[in-house]
C-alpha cells in the first residue's frame, strides 16, 4: 500500500505535544533532511482548568498545530481516546484499586505512542518516528538497537522508554538526546517556537489535579469505604478515608497521632487496611519484576552487576540482577531502597546504556 516514490526524501512522523521539546525535535528532523509530518494523539476528553499542566489537552493540540504550521509541516490530530481508555486508563484504575502504584506514562509509551500511533499513521508513509524525549538510540556492531541516556543527565527520560522493542527502537529517533535544555530553547527561540506554553509536568494527563482518589471515584463510580490504619502486627492505629487515597511512603495527611512519624508501608486491599510503619520499615533490598523488556540482549545470562532505578527521578542504585524466568527479573540492591512501590517500573542501566526493565510486582526485605 505504499504510495510514495522511491526517490522521495525520507519522511518522519513527529509526535508533537505542543511543547517546546517536540517542536524543536521536528525542527531538527527537518534540518536533517526529513520531510516531517506532525501528529498529536488526542487521548482523553476532559475539562482542564487554565492553570493545570498536562500533556494532551486541546490547547496543546492548538500549540502543536501552530508549531507545525511555522515549520511548514502537515499536521494531524489522531483521536485515540478509546484506545487510551482501554489500554491505559482502565488498567491504571484496576491496578490502583488492587493497591499498586501504576505508571500510566510508561503504559502509554508501551501501548500507544510508539505502537498504536505508528500503526494508525502508516498511510502517511513515514520511514521513522521522532519524539521530543531526551534519550539516545544507537546501533551496536552486531546490529542490535540500543537505548542510551540523554547527554544532559538532568533531562534524561530513558526511564519511561525502557519498554521499546528492537523494531520500535529501530524506527525511532530522539533528536534532542545530545542537546542541553538551553540549546533546545535557543533553537526554539530562533525559529519562533517559544510561543508554545512551557510545560514540563510529570503529572498524569488524565488526573491533572493529582487527586487520584477523586479521579478513581469519578471514573469507576465505585466508593472506596473508610477502613483501619494498622501497624505491622495488626493493631489498629486509626481510620483511613478510603484505600485509594494513599501511596507507599506517604507520611502527610494520615491523621494518625502515634508519637512517632508513621508512613504508608503497604495497602491490604482484601482487608481494606492501610499498613503503617516507621521510616526504617519502608526499606527493602529485593524486588521481583515482570512484563520485562531487555534491550542489548534477548535474555540475561547469570547474575549481572548494574545500576537500577525504581522511580522516575531516583538516583541509580547499584544492584545485582538475575533473570529468573522468561518474564521475570530479580533485583537485589546493595543497599536497601526506600518505598519501592509495586506497579512502578524498575529500569536497569550499565553506565549510559539502558539494559531494560520491568514492572515491579513484589518486594521483599532481606
Amino acid at each position, binding site marked *: *500500500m505504499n*504510495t510514495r516514490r522511491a526517490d522521495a526524501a525520507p519522511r518522519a512522523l513527529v509526535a508533537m505535544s505542543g511543547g517546546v521539546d517536540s517542536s524543536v525535535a521536528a525542527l531538527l528532523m527537518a534540518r536533517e533532511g526529513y520531510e516531517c509530518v506532525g501528529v498529536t494523539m*488526542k487521548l482523553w476528553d476532559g475539562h482542564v482548568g487554565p492553570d493545570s499542566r498536562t500533556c494532551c489537552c486541546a490547547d496543546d493540540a492548538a500549540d502543536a498545530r501552530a508549531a507545525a504550521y511555522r515549520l511548514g509541516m502537515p499536521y*494531524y*490530530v*489522531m*483521536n485515540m*481516546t478509546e484506545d487510551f481508555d482501554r489500554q491505559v486508563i482502565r488498567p491504571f484504575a484496576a491496578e490502583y484499586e488492587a493497591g499498586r502504584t501504576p505508571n500510566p506514562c510508561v503504559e502509554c509509551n508501551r501501548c500507544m505512542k510508539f505502537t498504536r500511533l505508528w*500503526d*494508525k*499513521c*502508516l*498511510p*502517511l*508513509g513515514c520511514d521513522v518516528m521522532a519524539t521530543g524525549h531526551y534519550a539516545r538510540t544507537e546501533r551496536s556492531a552486531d546490529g542490535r538497537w540500543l537505548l542510551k541516556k540523554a547527554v544532559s543527565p538532568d533531562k534524561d527520560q530513558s526511564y519511561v522508554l525502557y519498554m521499546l522493542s528492537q523494531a520500535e527502537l529501530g524506527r525511532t529517533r530522539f533528536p534532542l538526546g545530545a542537546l542541553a535544555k538551553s540549546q533546545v530553547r535557543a533553537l526554539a527561540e530562533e525559529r519562533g517556537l517559544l510561543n508554545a506554553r512551557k510545560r514540563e509536568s510529570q503529572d498524569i494527563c488524565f488526573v491533572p489535579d493529582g487527586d487520584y482518589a477523586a479521579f478513581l471515584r469519578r471514573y469507576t463510580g465505585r466508593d472506596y469505604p473508610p477502613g483501619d490504619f494498622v501497624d505491622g502486627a495488626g493493631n489498629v492505629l486509626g481510620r483511613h478515608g478510603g484505600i485509594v487515597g494513599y501511596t507507599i511512603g506517604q507520611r502527610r495527611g494520615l491523621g494518625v497521632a502515634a508519637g512517632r512519624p508513621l508512613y504508608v508501608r503497604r495497602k491490604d486491599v482484601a482487608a481494606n487496611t492501610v499498613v503503617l510503619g516507621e521510616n526504617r520499615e519502608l526499606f527493602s533490598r529485593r524486588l521481583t519484576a515482570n512484563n520485562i523488556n531487555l534491550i542489548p540482549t534477548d535474555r540475561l545470562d547469570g547474575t549481572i552487576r548494574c545500576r537500577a532505578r525504581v522511580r522516575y527521578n531516583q538516583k541509580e542504585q547499584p544492584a545485582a540482577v538475575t533473570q529468573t524466568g522468561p518474564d521475570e527479573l530479580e533485583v537485589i540492591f546493595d543497599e536497601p531502597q526506600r518505598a519501592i512501590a509495586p506497579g512502578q517500573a524498575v529500569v536497569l542501566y550499565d553506565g549510559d546504556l539502558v539494559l531494560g526493565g520491568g514492572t515491579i510486582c513484589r518486594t521483599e526485605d532481606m
Partner: protein
Amino acid sequence: MYVYADNAATTSLSPKALEAMMPYFTETYGNASSLHSPGQRAAEALQAAREAVAAAINADFKEIYFTGGGSEADNQAIISGAMAGARKGKKHIISTAFEHHAVLHTLNKLEKEGFEVTLLPVHENGVVTVEDVAAAIRPDTALVTIMFVNNEIGTIQPIAEIAALCHEKGVLMHTDAVQAVGHIPVDVQALGVDMLSMAAHKFHGPKGVGALYARRGVPLVNVIEGGQQERGKRGGTENIPGIVGMAAAIGEATADLPAHMAYVTGLREKLIEGLSKIPHSRLNGDRDKRVPGTVNFCFEGIEGEGLLLWLDQKGVAASSGSACTSGSLDPSHVLLALGIPHEIAHGSLRLSIDVLNTPEEIDHILKVVPEVVDYLRAMSPVWDELERGLTPHLI
C-alpha cells in the same frame, strides 16, 4: 487522480460567484449603511442579493436575514422560536437525535435555561415520521426544529408534512436546510416552514455567509447585537462580497436543478452499487429518501480514521461523519441515532459528490475504496476476530 468527494463538508467556490464577488472587495467597497454613493452601491448590491436568495427559495426578500453562516442561522432560529414560546409560557421544544451540533448544542443551552427538549428517534432508515412528531407535540410546545437533509447520511425528512402538522397545532417550525438548498428543490411556500437555515459554502458559494429565512410575523431575537443591519436583527457591517457570492451561487445551483439532480443521482447509484459489493458493508440511511449526492457506508472491522488517511493518500477526499466532528473520530451521533452499534459506527465513510464530479472519478473511488478496506481489514485485529468466528459479524 485526486477526487474531491466531500462536498457535504464544503464545496469549491464557483468561478461565477468569485467573479461576482471580486468588485466588492476593491472597487465597490462601501459600507451599505453609509449615505454616500460608494455606500449606495453596496446597499444596492445587498438588495439585489437579498432578492436573488429570496427568489431561489420562493420567499419575499424581507424574509431573508443574512448571517455569518448556517450555524448562526440555526442558533438564531431556535433561540427566537424558544423565546417566542416562552413569552406565552410554552417552554417545550421538539427536535431529533441526529441534528447538526449547531442545533443540538443550542438546545442543550436552552435546556439549562429551563426549556424541555424532546429528541425524536430517527429509526433505522434515518427518517423521522410525522406520527412521531404528532405524538410529541404538547400544549406547551413552542418550536419544532428538524433538519431537512441529514448532513452525514443524506436522508430527506418529511418537512412539508411536519410543518402542516405544526401549523395545525399552533407550533413554530424551523428546518436546518443547510444540506438541502442547492441540492434539492426548496420552496418555503410549498414547505410551509416558519424558519429555514442555509449556508452558502454548501452550494459553491463562499464560506462565512449564510441566511435565515423567517416568515413575516415570526419574531426574531438577535444573536448578535449591534447596528440596524438586517432590519435590526443581526448587528455588524454586512459581508457584501460574501453575500453577493452567495446570491450568485444560489442562482447557479438552482437554475438547472432537475438536470443536476438527475446527473448526480446517476453517479450516486453507481457508487452505492459498487460499494455494496464490499462484503460486510452497509449503506446507512433510507435507500430512496435521500439527497442526490451523499452516500454513507459502514465497513465492519475497520476504523474511519485509517480509512480516510489511506483514501487521502490514494487520491480520494472523503470524511467519516461530518467535518465538524471529525478530527475527533468519536463514533457519529448520527449513526448511533440510527441504532448502528458502536463498533460499526467507527468504520463509517461519507462520500458526498456533486455536479462537478465525473464518472471517471466515481470509477477511481470504486477502485481504491475496496483496496483500502481489504488492506485495513488484513491488519485489523478486530477483523481477524470476526473472521475466526470469535466475535459475530454484525453486518
